């Protein structure tokens, strides 16, 4: 993820320096106001911490190890602005004193990992962890997803930066001057790697550290979530917190017959019979800018459509006369099924959790 010099054109580097500069300025001002004289030691120590955990080999599934940037956990403890500065300083030290990551590409590296990474991690952690108690499992999930999303967002930015190089910068013969792969290759190549493996290192780090801090020193988690409720009060008010969600869900279920108002068929959701039925064919043509459909239904569609027959075809159980009521019944049945699956999942997760809680607590200390 640390882009070395030579992969990006100087113009791209300059643009990304310029893009990063206002964020640094705002971050410095905000953090300075909060910390005043404490700014210097806190940022230094945290940047040193970020630097060192970039060296850690995080065990990944499959016996391999990977490195985390630490942007997830930095954002959760310091907030997005503090994390932005700490990670930037750590990246600068890597580039200047250890020769890792380019000097001209430093702006790009900061933009991807420190800035985009911190903002994405913050958004995800706040959204999922909103209102959760400091020691709740939801915070661990929120932290894991925040780390995972942050590193993937950073990788996505990097892949875009790589991908536009051959478009913009090539010599007279058409040979790319910098990173040679177009967007169509750079984006999937980077994203497959990060969505599957590299992202997991960040996910494990952020989630694991939050789970550890919950057990050992939850005051560090309170820094960015000062108004998080206590464990006890959240248990009593579980209904109050989720009430708007339940009401919204009920309203959506009642409104499902609105689907009957829509004219024609949903584009691309045609069945094999629609291709043979003249009225169906007309609807397909209308929905496809008067492009007439093929004479016979596609062979694969015919073959696969017989594999599975839905118990409630077209959301209307065969024994029901009223289409509206059939829609509502289908919605209730479907929603109930989904909730049941999640409750079952939660119950199993609870069982596994209880099993691991019996294990001796981990300190990792000497």
């Amino acid at each position, binding site marked *: 993820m640390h882009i*070395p*010099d*030579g*992969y990006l054109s*100087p113009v791209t*580097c300059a643009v990304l320096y310029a893009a990063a500069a206002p964020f640094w300025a705002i971050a*410095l001002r905000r953090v300075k106001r909060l910390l*005043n*004289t*404490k*700014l*210097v*030691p*806190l*940022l*230094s*120590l945290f940047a*040193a*911490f970020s*630097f*060192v*955990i970039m*060296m*850690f*080999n*995080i065990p990944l599934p499959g016996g391999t190890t990977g490195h985390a940037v630490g942007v997830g*956990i930095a954002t959760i403890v310091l907030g997005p602005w503090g994390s932005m500065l700490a990670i930037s300083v750590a990246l*600068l*030290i890597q580039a*200047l*004193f*250890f*020769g890792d990551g*380019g*000097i*001209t590409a430093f702006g790009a590296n900061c933009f991807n990992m420190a800035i985009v990474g911190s903002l994405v991690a913050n958004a995800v952690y706040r959204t999922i962890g909103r209102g959760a108690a400091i020691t709740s499992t939801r915070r661990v999930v929120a932290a894991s997803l925040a780390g995972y999303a942050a590193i993937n967002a950073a990788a996505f930015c990097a892949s875009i930066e790589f991908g536009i190089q051959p478009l913009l910068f090539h*010599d*007279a*013969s*058409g*040979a*790319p*001057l*910098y*990173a*040679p*792969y177009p967007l169509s*290759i750079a984006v999937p190549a980077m994203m497959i790697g990060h969505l599957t493996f590299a992202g997991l290192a960040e996910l*494990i*780090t952020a*989630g*694991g*550290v939050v789970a*550890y801090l919950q057990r*050992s020193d939850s005051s*560090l988690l309170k820094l960015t979530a000062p108004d998080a409720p206590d464990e006890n009060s959240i248990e009593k008010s579980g209904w109050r917190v989720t009430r708007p969600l339940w009401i919204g869900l009920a309203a959506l279920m009642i409104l499902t017959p609105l689907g009957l108002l829509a004219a024609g068929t949903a584009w691309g959701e045609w069945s094999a019979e629609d291709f043979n039925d003249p009225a169906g064919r007309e609807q397909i043509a209308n929905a496809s800018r008067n492009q007439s459909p093929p004479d016979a239904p596609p062979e694969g569609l015919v073959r696969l459509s017989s594999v599975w027959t839905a118990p409630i075809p077209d959301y209307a159980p065969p024994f029901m006369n009223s289409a509206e009521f059939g829609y509502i019944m289908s919605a209730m049945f479907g929603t109930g099924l989904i909730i049941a699956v999640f409750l079952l999942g939660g119950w199993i997760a609870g069982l596994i959790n209880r099993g691991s809680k019996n294990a001796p607590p*981990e*300190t*990792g200390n*000497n």
Partner: protein
Amino acid sequence: MNPVSNHKLKSTPTRKKRRGSFIERTLSTLIRKTERALFAEELARKEGFLQKLDPRVKIIGLLALILDATLARNFFTIIFIFAIAVLLAIVSHVPLRTLAVRTWLSVLTFTGTIALPVIFITPGDALFRLPLLGWTITAQGVTSALYLLLRVETTVTLSLLLVLCTLWTHVLKGLRVLGVPVVFVVILGMTYRYIFVMLETARNMFEARQSRLIGSLDARESRRIAAASIGVLLTKSFYLNTEVFMAMQSRGFRGEVYTLDDFMMRGRDWLALAAFLLLALAGFWFGRQDSLQSFVNLHF
């Protein structure tokens, strides 16, 4: 910063039996990092050409050459700058063997792997067709792969010269010249110092764990230990922060930062600055010429 050579992990008996656990691997990464910093510090104290220069000249000169190498639109300019970098390494007593093994070879393997498919997939004039696979190598593809490799080799060598031939305290002061705000420079300096404290703390933690470990850890337990170690390090860094802050306050720190700027430009520094700028300008000028074109177009 203690010498760490006696902590080499190679003699650990478990190493022979299986691929090291993540603890061993992390330990060796941490030690390698510290060793490299020590190596750089040792080199920076030698009496070489770059070491004797004023850090401001070094930073400006080497950055200008790095910029040239990234701007250049033909091979000759990049190779010319690479040759300057090698020359600078020789006169500054940077062992070429270390440079070759640690830098050039690792760039070749990493960037080379990335660049290899380019020679087949870039559309352009066909040069050669692989006999069995039927893949076509294009002139544009080879040119592009060479650009990437040469550029990365050159810029990495130049930035490593800066790292290896300048004391880190001098790099910091030099940064002031480039307009980096003083508060950042101070944060950078403190960070660099505490990196070694943290590296040492992390090493102690992992060594303590490793010495109490019999058999191998399963994946789940490994992940728990990794996360817990990071958590402990985080808590420790907060404690350390409080202590450092109190120490700073007790010595009168009120948020303002002052540095001693005691660099003196001597005749040699001015000469070197002029030479660097002249080279950089020449590189910039020749680098813009598309007409020199690529090796490939000249040779085929």
